[in-house]
């Protein structure tokens, strides 16, 4: 034992760890952690989330903090979209920083990797961008505030059917978890809504040539085409579809990945007419939303996107739960999370028994015209 502890102390000094001093800080602030992708290809999402939650945090602390004047101290760790780094970050936040709850991580795969461990350690984790089926089934400490796409897609499908669609072909990126779960839920939603699925095609997220799949789909003449992929391949599919002669007679529907202003920037006119379901839209006319957008612009000099909005709401909801719990205790905060309600920028937000968002009231259908989304007529 003695030798082992020596080795470990040596290792500890190598790692430059200050385990001990951090604990004393915990008395006057409430430590909260967040794990987001801040570097690498996926970083735009993680950075938007960090911006949203940081804005909310400043508002909360400026308004007197929680638990009668204690400030929330937020530590944001970078996961770099890497499973091991996400796990390391969660372990550090819990073991070293003693956080009472974790917001994040950005990606579903990271969530599946770290949630079994945090759940075992009984620390609530609240995903703000997790859309995969089954994520919150991992355990009672696993939450998310993002609507699963199953709640978002039907609205867009209904709109397409109202415009006369009876058959649909689905295309999705099968190597990306976000896209795959988007497709899974699109498929179920289409079946439930009574749309006939006449073809399913796959591609890889980094593919650039979709002509084989699109040519096949074109031969089957579907009324609508659903694309479940991140924004860049979605744009690529649309551009090539137009080249192969798909016109206005075919309606295009996008998954959550297509719900980004970047779609118009990349695909230009080729993206005209695509519809997406969205839990939030920048032009949504509520006082909370207007205040949020103004504050976000003041702080960052740019408009927020849906990921920032979701993170912003989540941080406010967590603060409420800490207050309601009455103590900086992860167990009590978990129970409080099950009870709190809030009317935020996304609309009404609370958790159902499966720790998913209880309401899909805020969902809108957006349609693209001339490179910009607007609420579909």
């Amino acid at each position, binding site marked *: 034992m003695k030798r082992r502890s020596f080795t470990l102390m040596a290792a500890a000094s190598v790692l430059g*760890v200050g385990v001990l001093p951090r604990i004393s800080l915990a008395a006057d602030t409430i430590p909260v952690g967040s794990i987001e992708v801040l570097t690498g290809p996926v970083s735009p999402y993680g950075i938007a989330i960090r911006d949203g939650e940081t804005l909310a945090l400043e508002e909360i602390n400026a308004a007197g903090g929680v638990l009668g004047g204690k400030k929330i101290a937020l530590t944001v760790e970078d996961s770099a979209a890497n499973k*091991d780094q996400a*796990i*390391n970050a969660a*372990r550090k936040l819990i073991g070293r920083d003693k956080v009472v709850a974790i917001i994040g991580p950005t990606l579903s795969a990271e969530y*599946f*990797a770290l949630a079994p461990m945090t759940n075992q350690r009984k620390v609530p984790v609240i995903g703000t961008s997790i859309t995969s089926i089954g994520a919150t089934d991992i355990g009672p400490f696993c939450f998310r505030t993002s609507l699963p796409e199953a709640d978002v897609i039907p609205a867009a499908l209904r709109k397409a059917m109202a415009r006369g669609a009876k058959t649909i072909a689905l295309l999705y990126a099968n190597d990306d978890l976000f896209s795959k779960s988007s497709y899974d839920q699109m498929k179920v939603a289409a079946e439930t809504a009574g749309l006939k699925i006449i073809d399913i095609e796959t591609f890889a997220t980094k593919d650039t040539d979709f002509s084989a799949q699109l040519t096949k789909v074109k031969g089957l003449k579907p009324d609508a085409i659903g694309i479940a992929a991140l924004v860049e391949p979605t744009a690529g599919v649309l551009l090539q579809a137009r080249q192969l002669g798909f016109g206005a007679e075919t309606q295009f529907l996008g998954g959550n990945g297509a719900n980004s202003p970047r779609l118009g920037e990349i695909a230009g006119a080729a993206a005209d007419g695509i519809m997406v379901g969205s839990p939030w839209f920048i032009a949504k006319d509520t006082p909370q939303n207007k205040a949020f957008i103004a504050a976000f612009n003041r702080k960052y000099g740019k408009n927020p996107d849906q990921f920032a909005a979701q993170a912003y709401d989540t941080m406010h909801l967590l603060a409420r739960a800490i207050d309601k719990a009455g103590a900086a205790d992860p167990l009590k905060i978990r129970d409080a999370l099950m009870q709190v309600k809030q009317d935020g920028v996304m609309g009404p937000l609370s958790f159902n028994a499966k720790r998913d968002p209880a309401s899909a009231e805020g969902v809108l259908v957006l349609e693209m015209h001339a490179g910009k989304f607007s609420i579909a007529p």
Partner: protein
Amino acid sequence: MDLSWLDDFLWTYQNVIHSVGINGLLALSMYVVLAVGQLSLGQAAFMGLGAYSAALMTLKLGWPFWMVLPLSCVVPILFALAIGLPTLRLSGVYLAIATVGLGEVLKALYVNIDYVGGALGLTGIPEATETWMIYGLLALAVLAFWLVARSGIGRAMEAIREDETAARVMGVSCFRYQLGALVVSAMLAGIAGALEAHSTSLISPGEFGFEPEVSILSFALLGGIGTPIGPVVGAFILTLLPELLRGMADLRLVFNGVIIVVAVLFMPEGLVALRLRRRSA
């Protein structure tokens, strides 16, 4: 002495400690191929095959870990034979070329097979890897390679590395040694994969592609292949360094790449430029 901080420390850094050891095993799996003058760019792919087959044995068949761990090297070895048998009969770099895309191709395969979890991969893998298993195996592997290096087999391997033709006229069958090394290397990588899968609860298709592959090569080259210790030291350094230099995540891979370039151009012996003294007469 109050050791509760130690428990915290161990818990907090458990995953780092595991990664360090597993990367050490991977570095050794690269070492053994380099030691016979070949280059395999499929070590991450072999690791992925081990991880997937082990996780499937645990999740779908419910086999105990002590059975799963040794069996996890079967599939990687079969792949190593399928690729090694034709390419190692050829001269030079065919093995490297044939393995360079293996990781990416297997990724495409994994995402297309729902039985292995598609794009998500396999989740809910029970935590069965213990720290002592990783470091025990690592110590065992280092010892074994050290014993081999200080023997006739080790001399034959070094001869192949220095001059294949000269080695052949001395009765050394380059093909047999190289195929054997590849099989051992696939075995080690496969076991490392099984340990990795049962250390974190998730394995996903994207984890075993080109970038981890090149990182494994940088472990081995940083440490140098003069001794089996070198690659392990290289793996330790390059796994811990990003933990120390957080915020430079974007540059981590740049750094790994530069290490390879510098190692080959300027210090072919590696950073830990040791060479076993086999015997003094």
